[in-house]
């Protein structure tokens, strides 16, 4: 894993640690393994990058077009599968998406990028609201965006 992604994941882990219980299937055990918390952070970052990639496809063609795929309940289901140890995360996939998003963003201008970030953050927030209180979902989605942007722009200067 690249150092920047590793640092970003560790940074996000601190936020996910506080929220991890919302992702645990109802009735399952307490005190989620610290390793699983890091995995959930990786999944959230991966989903954000994947959303950015999808969004860029649309906005590069037509600026302002609704970006990103609807994440809906998919995120909740996936995260619950991870906290139940029923699914593992492909770390390489997260890294690939991060690299691809980085490359695509070089072709996009600042306005296009901001539109996509806003839309993916909004979708992530809505998806997280499926399992956690609104205010917490908003804060976590914003943190994912913040950390993802740091990964993408590390070598390109500030967003």
């Amino acid at each position, binding site marked *: 894993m690249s150092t920047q992604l590793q640092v970003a994941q560790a940074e996000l882990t601190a936020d996910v640690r506080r929220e991890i219980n919302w992702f645990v299937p109802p009735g399952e055990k307490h005190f989620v393994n610290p390793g699983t918390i890091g995995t959930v952070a990786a999944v959230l970052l991966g989903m954000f990058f994947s959303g950015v990639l999808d969004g860029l496809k649309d906005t590069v063609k037509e600026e302002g077009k609704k970006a990103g795929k609807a994440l809906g309940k998919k995120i909740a289901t996936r995260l619950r599968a991870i906290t139940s140890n029923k699914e593992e995360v492909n770390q390489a996939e997260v890294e690939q998406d991060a690299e691809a998003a980085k490359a695509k963003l070089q072709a996009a201008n600042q306005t296009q990028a901001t539109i996509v970030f806003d839309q993916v953050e909004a979708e992530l927030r809505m998806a997280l609201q499926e*399992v956690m209180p609104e*205010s917490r979902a908003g804060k976590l989605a914003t943190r994912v965006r913040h950390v993802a942007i740091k990964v993408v722009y590390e070598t390109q200067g500030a967003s």
Partner: protein
Amino acid sequence: MSGFDDWYLYGEGLARSLVAVAPEFGSTMFAQVMNSITSSGQSGFEEGRWHRVFKGYVYHGPEGGDNHYQREPPAGVAHEDILDASVMLSDQLIRELDHFIAKVETAAAGESVQMHQKDGQAVTFQATGDELARLQALAEMLRNTRAACQQNYNQAVMFRVHTDLMQLLQSAITESGGSPKAIVDLVRAGAAMVIDLRWQAAADARLTALFYVQTRLCELALEELDSNQIGDHEVVRLASMMIAGLRGAPNPEHVLTQSVIDFSRAGLGNLVLNLCDETLSFAEREVEAALNATDLLTHSGHLYSAAHIAFAGMSLAEGFREHVAQDARPDKATDSLLEGYATSAEEIVVRTGHALVINCINRATSAALNLHINQVRLAREEGGLDKAQMRADTLINDFYFYPHYYAKTLMGEPT
């Protein structure tokens, strides 16, 4: 212990460890930690058995692995095969407190006593001047904590508060006609009495949480008066029921749950949900402040506060779920949210209670710190720097045992 201050803080730490959550919980944690220290990593629980602890059940797998905690009784395990950890691990902490009270009382009388330094060496100590007054105050505090560990203590405090408030209630009705604000002020006055006891280590989290929740619910109801969601009469009725409910209740949790049910039945379930959110966030901020502390005293102070606030959040969410189960149509989304609040809050309760015991033991001997430094060293030997950092991170951020500034110490690096 190396000096008077450490000794004093150890006494305060013992008292707070006992009442941070509840005496039986503190005792279990203390015994578990002491066993870990004295038997090189053994938890004090029987391996391969389920144990009843606090509000749930713990399974300890062989060689410290495969541990589980869950709220429901384990499926397929007979009731008689589950060990009661609070009984099994005895009242070690209370005995330690009794032993310490005797020493403090002797020292407070100006006589010399034997005390141990952090390296285990015994030294003779004789208090003088200002130290004598501080020891007398400490002895009194410890005796109050000891009293708070007695059965029916919480019932007695609730009864005392009820008696005081009923007298004031009469005056409030006569003098102000029983305005909502006047009655809510009475609930606040009751809470102030208990918060005062809390800071003297004479009120456990169950008792403190009850008065915290009642006060906040009443304050939130007062705010709703402006939006006409509720009338004056209803606020007065709910607050009066809270005061009346203190008498004869079996325990604080029962009264708290009843208050939550009363509010929910009055159509104020939204206030309860808001308070779940507010309370969990408050407890999290206290934990964050503890971890960012620059000294162990501040660290333990914030954890102590987080314990009863988180207990309040847990009890609120559980009480509301009980209401949902009793009265309302099942609403999966709300129930799932409440479970999330209850679980998150409960984990803070357990972790703060455990961390306060570690903090206290480290005042006396640094034995727990040495054990943790050794755990980090072993992790480094097994998996290199990353693994060692992960272990240190877990001890700080997941278990709250130390503030962040201890990271270097745990890693065995110069500070």
